[in-house]
């Protein structure tokens, strides 16, 4: 479960003060499929970063499964990202010199597991995202859609409860984007995972159970379908 309680996030660059989030409170229950929408600069990505323990709020509390990220140590936040949260980024963020298999296994490798011990799990995930035959390919050899599917497999490898995705279709053509969205839908519906997707695309949001709209760092609307 993710809870945001009166969260504020302010970026200060020199004398310039930018308020990204201004008192946002919300609760995302386990198994929910949530789309976060809003215009550029509305605070969508900031919200996702705070919810994923990538960043800390300037004020207020962000709780992941009841634990406040502010009160966690840096290592505890890293552990939360590794085991409880799976991230999918707009630009895939695969390591270019690792094979697909190794990229997917990265969270497990960081946890000290040998690739050998995670191999069956990784293979199953690659099969599931349709990349079973490409496990030894390098990212450069993949298409955008394949890379994003690999990134989703990586987000799932540690079997996290929550998947957070930042514009996962933003860099893909519409056909491939649809494919990825279908994959997220399956994760939410059949695996009971919490999925939070930041998107500009109404078609993507249409698949979500709940749509949160942000404007100027505040929740403008929060509707469940």
């Amino acid at each position, binding site marked *: 479960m993710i809870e945001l309680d009166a969260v504020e996030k302010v970026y200060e660059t020199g004398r310039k003060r930018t308020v990204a989030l201004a008192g946002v409170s919300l609760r995302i229950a386990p198994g929910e499929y949530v789309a976060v929408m809003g215009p550029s600069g509305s605070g969508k990505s900031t919200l996702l970063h705070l919810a994923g323990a990538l960043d800390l709020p300037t004020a207020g509390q962000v709780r992941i499964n009841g634990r406040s990220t502010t009160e966690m140590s840096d290592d505890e936040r*890293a552990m939360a990202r*590794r085991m409880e949260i799976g*991230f999918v980024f707009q630009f895939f963020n695969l390591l270019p010199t690792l094979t697909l298999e190794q990229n997917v296994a990265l969270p497990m490798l960081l946890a000290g597991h040998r690739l050998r011990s995670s191999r069956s799990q990784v293979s199953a995930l690659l099969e599931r995202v349709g990349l079973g035959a490409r496990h030894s390919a390098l990212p450069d050899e993949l298409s955008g859609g394949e890379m994003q599917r690999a990134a989703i497999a990586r987000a799932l490898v540690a079997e996290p409860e929550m998947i957070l995705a930042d514009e996962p279709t933003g860099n893909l053509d519409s056909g491939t984007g649809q494919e990825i969205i279908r994959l997220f839908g399956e994760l939410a519906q059949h695996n009971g995972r919490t999925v939070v997707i930041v998107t500009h695309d109404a078609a993507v949001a249409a698949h979500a159970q709940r749509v949160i709209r942000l404007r100027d760092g505040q929740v403008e609307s929060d509707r469940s379908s």
Partner: protein
Amino acid sequence: MIAGVTLFPHVSWPYLRRRKGRAALALLSVALAVALFAAIRITDYSTVRAFEQSTQALLGAVQLIITHGIGTEPEALEVAEQTPGVRAAPVIQRAANAAQFGITLTVLGIDYARDARVRSYRAIGEFDWTRMWLDRRTVVIPQALAARHGINLGDPLLLSADGGEFRYTVAGLLRDEGPAAAMGGRVAVMSISAAQELFATPERFDRVDIVLDTPTAGDALRARLPAGYVLEPAPRSSPILDYFLAQMRTISLAVTLVALTIGLFIVYNSVSLSVTERAGELATLRALGARRKDVWSLFLVEACVICVPASVLGMGLALLAARQMLRQAAANMNVMVQTVDITRMWVPPDAWTVGPALGLVTALAGTLTAARAAARVPPAAAGSRSGAALLTLQTSRLWRWLIAAVPLGAVSLALALHPATPRLLTIVGFALIVLSLGLALPQLMLWLTIPLRTLARRWLQIETYLAFDNVAKYPARTSLTVVTLAGSLSIVVAVSGMLRAFEQAATRWMDDVFAFDLSVQSNPLTTTAYSGTAFPEDLIAEVTADPRVADASGARVVFQPYAGRTVMLLAIDAEPFWGMLARRQRISSDDARALVSELKGGAILVSRNFARLYGVREGDSVRLAAPGGTREFIVARITEDYSWPLGVIGMDREVYKTGWHDRSITYLDVQARDPSQIDALQSDLTRRLRGRMLLWVHKLADIKAYGSALLRDWFRLADAQIGLALVIGAVGVANTLLISVMGQSRQIGLIRAVGATRGQIQRVLVSEALLLGAAGAVLGVLMGVAVAAGLAPVFIARESGYRFPFVMPWSSVGLVAVAALVIALAASLLPIRAVRRFDIVRAIAME
């Protein structure tokens, strides 16, 4: 260039301010290279100036000197005084021990009435110089010397030399100027007759100093002088000092050039990353109409701007380092030559100009390639914040570097190894070899890392793999860093390898030819090795009379001009010397007898380095200048001897006495009948001899230890440079790691986002540092061994004729391994700090 200057405040300056750490590292590397050059130049210049000032102070207005082999007869003075337009003054100038103060003084024996016409002495208060002439037991000393040792007027001053030990009274004090300021003020002036007594040279002077009042007087004097006398310009330098300075300069120059090359690599690394980081910004400039040459000039202006504070810092560091190096140089020179105070630091004008100019050249050369890449950033890349494409471009061109490196390396190697190459070019050859290695290594590394990366991906832990990946991903940056570190470390291995080789050869030689147990010397093993005072030969008989003494052999050491250099003439009592060796079974009795017979017959021995330097073989004849005229000697044997780097000539002392009219000895070697009596003999001899003159009785082990210490001290001069070179190496690794963090922030951000802890990222960096350190250590050892075993011996053989078998300096290899580890870990501190402040969100947002 104008565009670069115009754009600099708006484009470069904000970037440099943002990347303070990296700009500081590039600045520091240039500053250190400037510092090394300038410190060495200042040390060299100050040493020469100190010596010149000292000589100038001693010589005063003297233009010419008359010599006659060793010493001059009074007839030369008479002839000079009878020549119109000539002012002449006889001088005895030698070292004497003032044991009560633990110092060696340069004694000036003068005839004041004559000397006052060529030199100026200014006494404190009223001093009647005739008193010194009337009383042979009076001396005059400089005011500063008296103050330093608490000597007052009327105090006694004990001096000992060839003639024995004498007690003088300090009758006057001199102002610290003119001759009183020479040799760091460690001077005692006495009448010439007193000096003749002290140095046992009755009726002889060391030289006659000449001042000419008319330009033609010199020719007139030369025409009048009897045969055998030499009228020559007053020496303003010492050939021995010149030799040692040349050696010091060689080591220093080699270290400086390597440091400059290393500095160049560091600058290249920094600028190439800055180009990568600013690719988007540069593309925007290009999109807005900036021409390639504008971008190019922008980077060159940056290099120039960095050079200004780097030069200021470099010169500041140079002044600090030079102070330390001068102390070491002074100690070395005084051991080798004579007592000269090098307390004052003179900064030659060229240090202020050439130092910064070298820094500028280094910075510009390091910038050129990266600036060229910057100028090629396509305008279409505007808006992109990543320079990955640019890096690929650079990597794809590495083979060109390799192609350039092969002929460069071959020519440099040929240049360094060719026997006819002048010293400076040999050193330049060394530096160019390092440069070609730096050029060749990136492509070699690229080829090597492709298969290695596949293996590492399969077998290494993720942190170690990522470290390996970082190292392998940017072969140019990595290999230049490895060469940087290796270059610094190789100096340690090379210097140590040469030292060990020399030490081992010299130790073996000492073991072979030192058959004595005790040696009586006027040198307490703390002052000069090559200019100790001599003492009378009567001592030989006295020592031999002791029933515990098996044999005693006297030796006279003098320096002799030969073939434009200064060689050592070692006159030994051949019979007891080889008798001692035969008794200790170092040579067969028959061999010893044959050698003694040859030497007594007037033949000579020459050292192996002498034979190599002057192309002399057994049976050849060697002509030597002696007081009675030039003498010819047949070379009986060529022997191993490491006493003097410009060659040693050995002859029987009876032959020397006849030819050089010198009966004194420099040391006396004693062999005990029973080794168990050595200690007792040492203390008895010390007691007996010290009662009459200032002599020390040393054990063989102490002399050997002293020899080794001298050698180490000499090489220690390079310590300051090596220290600076290691700092440069550390700066190089720190620079690369920092670049690694900054250049891969996106990757680090991603790994952090998927759950890597700070500790894991730090482990990646430490592993990367250790990988660089290990590679640097391995290459450093290889380069050091190549220099010590391959290049340096050629150079040393050419300079001194010495050839040593290579000795692997294992202790230095261990030291280098530890140093590489420490440097790598220390260098990783800065990037680790950067990781602590790492912003994951910002990093993953980059594209």
